[in-house]
């Protein structure tokens, strides 16, 4: 109801100049006309301060990233020193800057790994835990514990497992001597997979918690009906539960995509995102905190990240805000 009012307010041109539909004569909205001048100002302030903060700290920098990506600015000599150089940063990115395609590839591997392994595993755990067998709460807690930890701590904890000499894994494999050590985090052909396992340790629990909440809201009558019709549990899940869970499936899909694009902490804490762990996010960071602060160029990488993220974000927003009834 409130939403419908909000929706009609946003699609039909309002009579009031300020945007608050206070002077609308429609009888349904009678209470709006009861807003005093002071109330209108209060509402403007209440919405204005948050909007200003988001505007200055997020929207403005997003737009500035786009503009700066067409310039060659190293941050020295004020805004006057900004020179527009067209698409040069982008052509350099593609033709000259070697870490770019590896980073893009690593982000993609990250996404595929999450989509094919971490996320389905989390959903699978949720389905099993939803059966309410004995000990469910304990299993749930164990699987969900890593979710509260920061990725930086996750990185540290897994270093204890991956360290070449002191690490658990090489000790168990008997590969701790110089020469036969496996450098899980140092070898660029395996370190991405090593941190993906660490990242999944946390992602699985995250997906499990979200999916489990969705399953709890699932109408048990549907499941009973399927079982009476002779459907097996697997059939029931894929033909009945999964399709009905469509909204939460989409949320989880979007979270998976966005988490893959946001991947940063683990790679950075492991080796500053170099040597096999390049990601778009670490390239942006290294371009501004390095000795040579290349703002225009770093912005171009940020814009690539923006362009990739915008699709799933908009898709998600339309689904979650439009289907609001």
């Amino acid at each position, binding site marked *: 109801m*409130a939403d419908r009012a*909000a929706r*009609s*307010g*946003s699609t039909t041109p309002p009579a009031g100049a300020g945007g*608050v*539909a206070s002077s609308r004569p429609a009888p349904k*909205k009678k*209470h709006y006309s009861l807003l005093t001048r002071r*109330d209108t100002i*209060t*509402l403007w302030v*209440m*919405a204005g*301060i*948050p*909007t200003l*903060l*988001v505007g*200055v*700290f*997020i929207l403005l*920098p*997003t737009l*500035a990233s786009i503009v*700066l990506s067409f310039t060659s600015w190293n941050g020295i000599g004020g805004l006057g020193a900004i020179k527009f150089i067209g698409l040069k940063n982008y052509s350099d990115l593609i033709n000259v800057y070697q870490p770019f395609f590896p980073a893009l590839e690593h982000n993609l591997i990250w996404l595929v790994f999450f989509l094919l392994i971490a996320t389905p595993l989390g959903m699978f*755990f949720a389905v*099993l835990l939803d059966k309410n*067998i004995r000990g469910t709460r304990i*299993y749930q807690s*164990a699987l969900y*514990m890593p979710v*509260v*930890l*920061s*990725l*930086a*701590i996750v990185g*540290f904890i897994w270093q204890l*497992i991956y360290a070449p000499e002191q690490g658990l894994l090489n000790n168990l494999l008997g590969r701790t001597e110089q020469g036969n050590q496996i450098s899980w985090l140092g070898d660029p052909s395996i370190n991405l997979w090593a941190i993906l396992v660490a990242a999944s340790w946390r992602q699985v629990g995250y997906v499990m*918690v*979200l999916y489990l*909440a*969705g399953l709890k809201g699932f109408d048990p009558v549907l499941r009973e009906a399927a079982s009476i019709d002779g459907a097996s549990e697997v059939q029931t899940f894929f033909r009945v539960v999964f399709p009905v869970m469509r909204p939460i499936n989409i*949320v989880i899909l979007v*979270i998976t995509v*966005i988490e893959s694009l946001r991947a940063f902490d683990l790679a950075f*804490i492991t080796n500053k995102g170099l040597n096999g762990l390049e990601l778009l996010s670490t390239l*942006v*960071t290294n371009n*501004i905190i390095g000795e040579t602060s290349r*703002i225009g160029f*770093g*912005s171009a990488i*940020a814009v690539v*990240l*923006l362009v990739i993220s915008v699709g799933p*974000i908009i898709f998600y*927003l339309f689904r979650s*805000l439009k289907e609001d009834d």
Partner: protein
Amino acid sequence: MSQIVTAGAAHRRKNLRRGGLQAFLITMSVIWLLPLAWALYTSFRPYDQTATYGYVSIGGIYNLDNYVNSFNQGQLPMYFLNTVIILVPAVILVLFLSSMMAFTVSRYSWRFNLILLMVFSGANLLPPQVIITPLFRIFLVLPMFAPLSDNGVMYDQYIGITLIHVAFQMGFCTFVLSNYMKTIPKALNEAAVVDGASVWKTYWTIILPLTRPALAALATLQVTWIYNDFFWALILMKTGAKYPITSALNNLQGEFFTNNNLIAAGSILVAIPTLIVFFALQKQFVSGLTLGSTKE
């Protein structure tokens, strides 16, 4: 007769499946707990003990030396305090501002309602690296007055980190709170207006108290997320002594160089506040997460 037999067989089969399921879940839970358990185990063993016995071994001395050393050498109290200085105002501000925003968009008809909600939520979903380069430049010049800033700008200041957290988290909180507020009957507003209550009074004395469960869940979630943030201070602060604890981990790594026992103890110490959230406020944390993904 044969029917009874098959029923019994089916029952046995079901029991067997349950048993298999239990075994599988126990195995998975053990695997999941193993990394943390390993860190815990390593943290109790002095370095020379693991050097003699090897890391994967039982025996020798167990004590809390690593905790004492990482706490002192790593200057953890200082970094914990930095986190508190950033975190407490950030959580209060983000809940206060986003509840006001949610109140206006969910309970009044604005022209830009939907657009604003979309922009807010979208801003929250962006990877932080998309905005960091210009934000870094903005922080270098954006003025901030004396008690809140000792260099006149936002860069390298607690207030800067607090505000970027507030701006970044506001989208999620507004989204959750406005969904929550939509479930509060609109008639309450009308009753308040009839009683002559102002908009502010309606928000503060009627709607906000009813939103308390959502606020509690969000507060838990925000404390955890802001505590866990690694990125913002890394770029927007330069004084290492001002770093919040999670960002400081990056420097600690250099200090504890190759001493895995110290790293283990330090990790556990830094994880303790979030583990408290895990044990004590699990319900709030989970309901905060799910409030954001499902609708009432």
